[in-house]
């Protein structure tokens, strides 16, 4: 097991390095001048541009730039010179001249928002999707199953932003079921209640679509597993149906869910762009979108890298978790 984990860790590191290089190459060879972008879309003062070019190191050879970037990740980095010296401590992901801020700080502000959004949503959709999926499988063909089918149909066909708007209009504005999520995002440590209150609708919006997918998946996985020979063996031993379901069927049926959930969670952390926009949450998705709109290159590079990083790490976690669940994967 230890050998397996360390081998997977080494591979993950290699992948991250490759991805970062690839991202760097792509952006280095895009057909616009990164220095010209530093002062916004319509700025064409050659003085500022050339100064920024030097400050940001865009005048250096490509490999030096990449090396400085990597070095900045571990040791921090300074931009510019003299009085205008800007210091972004490690891990430095660069400096945005448009926002006049170290990219790391910008991400540091946005990440907790996205994380809060993702964690709440995943808890909701796992509870809903797994619960409903199991019920639908257990009572196949009965009313619960039929209701779940309708839910799956709606959930998978409604686009997220529409779900969000509908929830907003009906649940909040029409029916006053929950008070209007007033104010801005509040960090959990400041006020957990407000945190949850503001995020509740976004959670529901995100969870809705995923829960539908998961219901469908769990239902078919449970049904497939309950047709396995080893479930028949369990029944032949004289186990009760509830033990068979709880101990034998679910263990095997839910194993693939771990993989799915891990990757979906990673995807959300990369930025739930639509949901964040609909609910006006200052998360990673919004940061990335506004950077794209404004050609704020350092932020684009950093968010892309971060998304890749999250996917790779989640993959690693999921694989280790899976090896723990399924002994056949445990290659010594």
């Amino acid at each position, binding site marked *: 097991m230890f050998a397996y984990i360390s081998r997977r860790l080494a591979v993950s590191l290699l992948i991250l390095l490759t991805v970062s290089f690839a991202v760097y190459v792509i952006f280095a060879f895009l057909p616009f001048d990164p220095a010209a972008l530093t002062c916004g879309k319509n700025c064409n003062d050659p003085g500022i541009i050339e100064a920024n070019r030097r400050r940001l190191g865009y005048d250096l050879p490509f490999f030096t730039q990449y090396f400085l970037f990597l070095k900045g990740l571990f040791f921090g980095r300074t931009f510019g010179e003299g009085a205008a010296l800007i210091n972004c401590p490690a891990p430095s992901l660069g400096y945005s001249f448009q926002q006049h801020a170290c990219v790391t700080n910008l991400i540091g502000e946005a990440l907790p928002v996205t994380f809060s959004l993702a964690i709440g949503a995943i808890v909701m959709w796992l509870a809903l999707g797994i619960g409903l999926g199991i019920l639908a499988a257990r009572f196949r063909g009965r009313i619960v199953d039929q209701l779940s089918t309708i839910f799956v149909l709606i959930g998978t066909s409604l686009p997220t932003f529409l779900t969000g708007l509908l929830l907003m209009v009906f649940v909040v504005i029409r029916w006053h079921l929950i008070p209007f999520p007033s104010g801005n995002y509040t960090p959990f440590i400041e006020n957990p209640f407000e945190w949850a209150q503001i995020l509740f609708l976004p959670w529901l919006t995100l969870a809705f679509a995923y829960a539908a997918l998961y219901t469908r998946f769990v239902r078919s996985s449970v049904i497939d597993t309950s047709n*396995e*020979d*080893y479930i*028949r*063996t*369990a*029944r*032949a*031993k*004289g*186990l*009760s149906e509830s033990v068979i379901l709880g101990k*034998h069927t679910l*263990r*095997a049926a839910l*194993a693939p869910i771990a993989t799915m959930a891990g990757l979906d969670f990673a995807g959300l952390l990369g930025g739930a762009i639509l949901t964040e926009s609909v609910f006006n949450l200052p998360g990673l998705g919004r940061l990335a979108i506004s950077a794209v709109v404004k050609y704020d290159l350092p932020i684009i590079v950093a968010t892309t890298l971060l998304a890749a990083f999250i996917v790779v790490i989640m993959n690693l976690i999921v694989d280790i978790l899976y090896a723990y*669940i*399924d*002994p*056949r994967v445990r290659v010594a």
Partner: protein
Amino acid sequence: MTLLKVENLCVDFPTPDGLVAAVHDTSFEISPGETLAIVGESGSGKTVTNLALMGLIPLRTANVTGSAKFESHDGPVDLLAMNRNDLRKYRGRDMAMIFQDPMSSLHPFYTIGDQIIEAHQIHNKVDIKVSRDRAIELLEMVGIQGAATRIKSFPHQFSGGMRQRVMIAMALVNNPALLIADEPTTALDVTVQAQIMKLLSDLQKELKMAMILITHDMGVVAGAADRVNVMYAGRIVESANVRDLYANPLMPYTQGLLASVPRMDRPHTERLSAIPGQPPSMIALPTGCSFNPRCGRKSEVGASKCESQMPDLTTRGNQHFARCFIGEGA
């Protein structure tokens, strides 16, 4: 004394294409220590018969009728009259079952020790240590070396033959009076098949256990069975003691079956005598004797009789029964 007496067992599956009479009006009995083999083509109802006795056919999908009187630890019971929850007590304790495919019959996520211990724990209110010792004892009995450490292995770490041994150990953990073995060696190589069949017969003698052996291998039947039921299209068509059946098969299907097996103990003759045609569709059984479209001996009793009436399973003396108009009442 009889251990199990099955009478008029019927199992029907309603399907969109029509009613599948998988098992029709089947009666047989088995004494303690006896081996009853059930042979027949694929789809003839061998597995369904035994799943019905174990209560393993989902009631939603099938109609099961008939009776099965069984001498359990707590006295005589009717396995088919009981509700499923009560039946659970006997499954795995008084009667156990092993299946064809040892690769897929064990749960891949649990150690074999845990799986055997679980089978013991359900029926015995004892400390888990007692169950563990029992598991080790049984694994040793079925010939798994280093059982004390191997109980921590997962099924995928075992070969097919060893997994079948584990299945046998698990089935025997509560000393069942009846073991149902559904094609226990079909998925295994001949050399491993020989090991498993020997193991089963040794254990059976030692534990005085009755066994229902489902197989389509006429060689395995000859070596292991005391009595044989031949099934065709959901019905028993012949039932006899094993020597009688091989020496004097009475029903044309049994005769054809025995004649069509290539035999290593004879010079390899030019042609096998094959039974013509295909097994019938269970949804549209032929009228009259189910075997009549393939039967070469119809003319002996008149084809029209065979094509319009279903013969009964009648006695031919010496505990030999056959379902055929030929030789009936002779």
